[in-house]
């Protein structure tokens, strides 16, 4: 009886074929068509004494900073929730829609827009997991007060389309077997303790990733008397990945960065061009 019930599912699975894609962490990945990522910023188009974008940005990612002339906007993508209101508000096209999602960064500073960053230069993470763990990675996820959007995309990593296992990364139940603590949410007063306990239970060396804008900076939801503003000041962060939520390829890209299998793409709040591919990717 059991076999009779299960056999059709096996055939069903086989006829679905192979849907898994390869991930290079670059360009327009399959399945991500029309996905809107971080808006691009071109301050050269700004007009004097304008603050339309800053007023339209709920999480305060855009601030006006004094410079040589009138104040100019600057963008902290670590606070950006990709609402695209700045694009809508800007009268001169200084903000434009873009599909830029590979925003994983080893440093918080690289998420802030800076003029000097246009030219690519090598980025080395503070520490690379790969040197320590070889090519596999065990991840303990902790929800520290998310809206469940980030979990929705983390759960997607195990669907047949992304198939995280194939990259040697696994979600694990016990922090004692985890290399990476992957945290979502702005850190509520009540989750702060359990979060720190999970970190303490992890063996050295241990790594921390702030996944989603809430965990990077608090985003729209942090603050108030019940919420923190993300992981800074709570845990030492090795990888910041803003996005609300980050799409699965962005999460995969950030994990591969930790394993030193792909380079960091974001410098000074902009994606730097990839060096021309040399042979097949190792993924």
């Amino acid at each position: 009886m059991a076999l009779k019930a299960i056999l059709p599912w096996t055939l069903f699975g086989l006829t679905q074929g192979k849907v898994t894609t390869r991930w290079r962490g670059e360009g327009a990945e399959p399945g991500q068509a029309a996905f809107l990522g971080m808006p691009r910023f071109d301050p050269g188009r700004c007009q004097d004494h304008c603050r339309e974008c800053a007023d339209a940005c709920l999480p305060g990612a855009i601030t006006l900073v004094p410079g040589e002339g009138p104040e100019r906007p600057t963008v902290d993508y670590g606070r950006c929730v990709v609402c695209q209101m700045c694009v809508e508000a800007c009268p001169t096209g200084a903000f434009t829609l873009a599909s830029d999602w590979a925003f994983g960064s080893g440093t918080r500073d690289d998420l802030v827009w800076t003029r000097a960053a246009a030219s690519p230069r090598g980025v080395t993470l503070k520490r690379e997991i790969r040197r320590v763990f070889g090519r596999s990675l065990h991840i303990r996820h902790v929800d520290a007060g998310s809206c469940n959007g980030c979990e929705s995309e983390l759960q997607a990593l195990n669907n047949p389309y992304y198939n995280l296992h194939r990259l040697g990364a696994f979600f694990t139940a016990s922090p004692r077997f985890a290399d990476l603590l992957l945290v979502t949410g702005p850190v509520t007063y009540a989750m702060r303790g359990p979060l720190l306990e999970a970190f303490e239970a992890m063996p050295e060396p241990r790594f921390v990733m702030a996944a989603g804008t809430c965990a990077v900076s608090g985003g729209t939801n942090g603050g108030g008397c019940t919420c923190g503003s993300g992981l800074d000041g709570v845990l030492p962060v090795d990888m910041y990945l803003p996005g609300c939520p980050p799409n699965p390829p962005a999460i995969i890209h950030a994990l591969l960065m930790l394993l030193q299998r792909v380079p960091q793409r974001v410098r000074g709040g902009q994606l730097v061009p990839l060096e021309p591919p040399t042979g097949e990717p190792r993924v």
Partner: protein
Amino acid sequence: MSGSPVVVSEDLAPAELVTRCRAALGEGARMQFMYAWFPEGPTAPELRYVLHPGSGCPPHIWRCRPGDDPPPSLATTAPLLSWYERETTDLCGVVFRDQPLPQPLVLLPGASADRPPLVPGPMPHLSYTPAPEDLPQLAGTTREDVQLLPFGPIRADVLESAQFAFLYAGEMILHYHPQLFFKHRGMEQRFAGLSPRLGVFLAERVSGIGSVAHALAYCHAVEAAADCEVPRRATWLRVLLAELERIYNHLHYLGHLCHTTTLKVGEAQGKYLEESAKQINSRVSGSRLLRGLVTPGGLRREPQLAGLAADLAQLESEFRRYTDRLAATTSHLDRLMTTGVLGRQLAFDQGATGPVARACGLDRDPRRDQSYGAYAELPLSIAIDERCDAYARQQVRIAEVFNSIDVIRVVLAGLPCGWLSTECRPPPRSEGLGWAETPRGTAYYAAHLDADGRLARVKIKSPSFSNWRVFPYTVHDSNMMDYAINEASFGLTVAGCAR
């Protein structure tokens, strides 16, 4: 708000509350929720009770100023109000006379604020020293084989944080106590002082996999306050987005349900279909969770509809194959049937909503009964199942996916021309009530504007707050082995409950 019924309000004295509530329930009304706000300063709260007098009627609002004496609790008359009263005590400082369970709800044991967080004024300071949960003593038991299994708040796999305590003997769960507020973010506070236009981005992030419906309920509230009529094209496109949201959520639900019945291929296929649906969302809106389009007054951009009809046809045929297979898999169905039975009266009294309520034969859906937007013009069919168990909850969702696809098809075929949005500026001191059917049940938003036309108070009634209240009744006296299946069959979110 186009096509939606007019809300009726009435002032009640505290002394009238209990008798009026009894009378309304006797006439077939359903209490929906209650909340407090402070129209005249921090010392004068006003209570609001929202009820539906009957199917097809617009909601009624009762306003009540408690004055110096504590207002009476309605928790014994309308049990579902109990959680709202306790939350109002935690966050607004209003204490209810004869509340049967006066413990804090939203604030964890050991947490206390120096002033109630939702009372206007300076930001309160919250202190927290974790304290044990107040678990019931199992009456009269001297049995030593009763064990306590605490679980969470960090759970296995990629799951939302929540803590569950099981008191069990052998395989039998005698009592189940969920602590759902580790994730309480104070979302209602976060709205205060915002412009109505920016508030929608918070509403999208209350329950992140219900972004469209939460944004709609919020916008309906703001649009009611502004008395603005959303252009017809926008109302049709809003339906399209809301039904796409239902589709990807229900597909996720089925994949996860298969996970709990250990049907591996069924799990993988459900999650694959969910991924296909999210990729469709991304092509239509630029966001896999359909965020960023709904705005007070209409939509911000035209969704990209090219190719959608073909994508949906493909999804539908794959979904049909999938559900045919599920229907033929007795090992899966056997685990669902008679699991997690929720009686109809209990579902009504405790406030079950959405597919959970419709799976116990409660024929209610505000898309039809308190119709909003374009639903009255579209071929909605409300799925009802009388079986009250996990199987019924699965079947209702399967039927809803097919109906959502049908509705979207009609939207695509008959989409009216015209504007995408209209100006929506709620005047100072205005207020509005809005609602929308999320994939998990009905969400309500109440919005109150201040003297500058900014948000003074936003109340969120989310479906998971309702269904989490109901869920434990199906767990007491059930089997440990069925717990995961039962929980999955409810399809709850913690974020929506904790807010």
